[in-house]
């Protein structure tokens, strides 16, 4: 690679990181306004037009707040945990193809790479919980570990049907295979399972029992404040966007769409899925924890395996 290519790549990465953080900030505002609308209240509407600058004010507040670790906390792990929440999610976006040729690194293992990055977030929750030396945090951490293992197992299987049909793990190949017909029409069960697991992987309501505030305060992040608290939230919002980007690539035809340029279509689809996440948050109550884990292992995992088996038969049957 030439020096110019390296420089271009570095610039593209920095621009992407900056855009993602701004997007996460705007997402917090959108979420609060939309939730307000759905719950028949106003939401934040004071700072700037329609309250749009609320997220800037919140960022300034969080940066200037004191970030105090509790006495008896394990300092190293306490500081490392929020980084584990944000960094893998930001890294995962490196392989997302936003348009034709619009990817920082269009790895041939793109989908597996994103799955790996989603899997690493479990350390943020578990380490943060363990380091805080707090019973509520510990309960949250234990819930998080069991839940992440249960839901990641069928997250991977649910998208294998798409990978089989596209014949590649590369994001751009998967999108290219959907020219004309989106995979959500061919893989409806896979898509439903993927989005269910995606909500759990991004630990959003109704699958957020690890921080469910009505029984364990704030779960694994009970003790966190200031910027390290904000990093957990940054990680969560970017995880939602990463799951939405993955869903768009796998099931909604990626950058394909009439008239508008590809990256704009991609952004629109990701935004729509994010809105659906907020809607689901407002609409559904939390399940009981044993129902949550039982559903993952006893219903979703067998269904994902069945989906993979049937897809395999069809792909092999059509090829042979």
């Amino acid at each position: 690679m030439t020096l110019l290519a390296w420089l271009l790549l570095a610039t593209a990465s920095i621009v992407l990181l900056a855009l993602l953080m701004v997007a996460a900030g705007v997402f917090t505002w959108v979420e609060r306004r939309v939730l307000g609308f759905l719950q028949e209240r106003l939401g934040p509407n004071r700072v700037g037009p329609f309250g749009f600058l609320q997220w800037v004010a919140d960022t300034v507040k969080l940066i200037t707040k004191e970030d105090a670790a509790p006495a008896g906390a394990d300092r190293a792990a306490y500081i490392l945990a929020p980084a584990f929440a944000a960094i893998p999610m930001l890294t995962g976006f490196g392989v997302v193809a936003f348009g034709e040729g619009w990817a920082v690194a269009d790895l041939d293992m793109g989908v597996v790479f994103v799955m790996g990055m989603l899997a690493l977030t479990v350390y943020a929750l578990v380490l943060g919980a363990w380091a805080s030396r707090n019973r509520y945090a510990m309960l949250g951490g234990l819930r998080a570990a069991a839940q992440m293992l249960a839901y990641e197992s069928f997250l991977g299987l649910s998208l294998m049907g798409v990978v089989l049909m596209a014949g590649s793990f590369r994001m751009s190949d998967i999108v290219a295979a959907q020219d004309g017909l989106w995979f959500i029409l061919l893989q409806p069960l896979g898509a439903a399972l993927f989005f269910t697991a995606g909500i759990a992987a991004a630990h959003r309501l109704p699958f957020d029992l690890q921080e469910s505030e009505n029984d364990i305060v704030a779960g694994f992040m009970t003790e966190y404040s200031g910027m390290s608290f904000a990093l957990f939230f940054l990680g969560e919002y970017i995880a939602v966007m990463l799951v939405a980007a993955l869903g768009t690539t796998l099931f909604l035809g990626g950058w394909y769409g009439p008239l508008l340029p590809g990256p704009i279509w991609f952004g629109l689809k990701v935004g729509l899925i994010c809105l659906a996440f907020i809607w689901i948050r407002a609409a559904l109550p939390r399940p009981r924890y044993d129902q949550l884990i039982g559903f993952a292992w006893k219903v979703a995992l067998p269904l994902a395996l069945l989906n993979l088996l049937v897809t395999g038969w069809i792909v092999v049957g059509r090829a042979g």
Partner: protein
Amino acid sequence: MSGFIALWCASAALASALLAVTRPGIVHGLMWLVAALLSLAGCFYALGASFAGAVQVLVYAGAIVAVFVFVVMTVDATPEALAEERARLSGAWRLPAGVVALVALPLLLGPNSTGLEPGPATVPLKALGALLFGPWAIGVEIASALLLAALMGARHLGRRR
């Protein structure tokens, strides 16, 4: 360039593996184990085996060690337990371990190490899959039978009386 990255990741893996076995706090040890596994994944990427690298992150760092952490978290890290662990680590094991390291050193520095020089031959995934379900099918089946046995064992131990 990728040879340099591979060597860099390998050194990081070695250093974190060493720290993983010498830290008294067990959770810290596990964190270094995660670091070692991630460095190893970096090695795989740099040497062109990107599937092995991705699976390393997903399965080992993301799932297996996460289960270890799940179990270890419930162990209380009291000052007494830490002191006991420190006492164990400061024993006479250092001499034999040092001798083994000295014996292993030529393997690192020897002429075979030039095997790291990468032809950037990336391993195509379909070829890998064909190998796993062709010549190596029996190995894969034996591994899956082992996992199935473990699953049934866990089911048996966890059944409600």
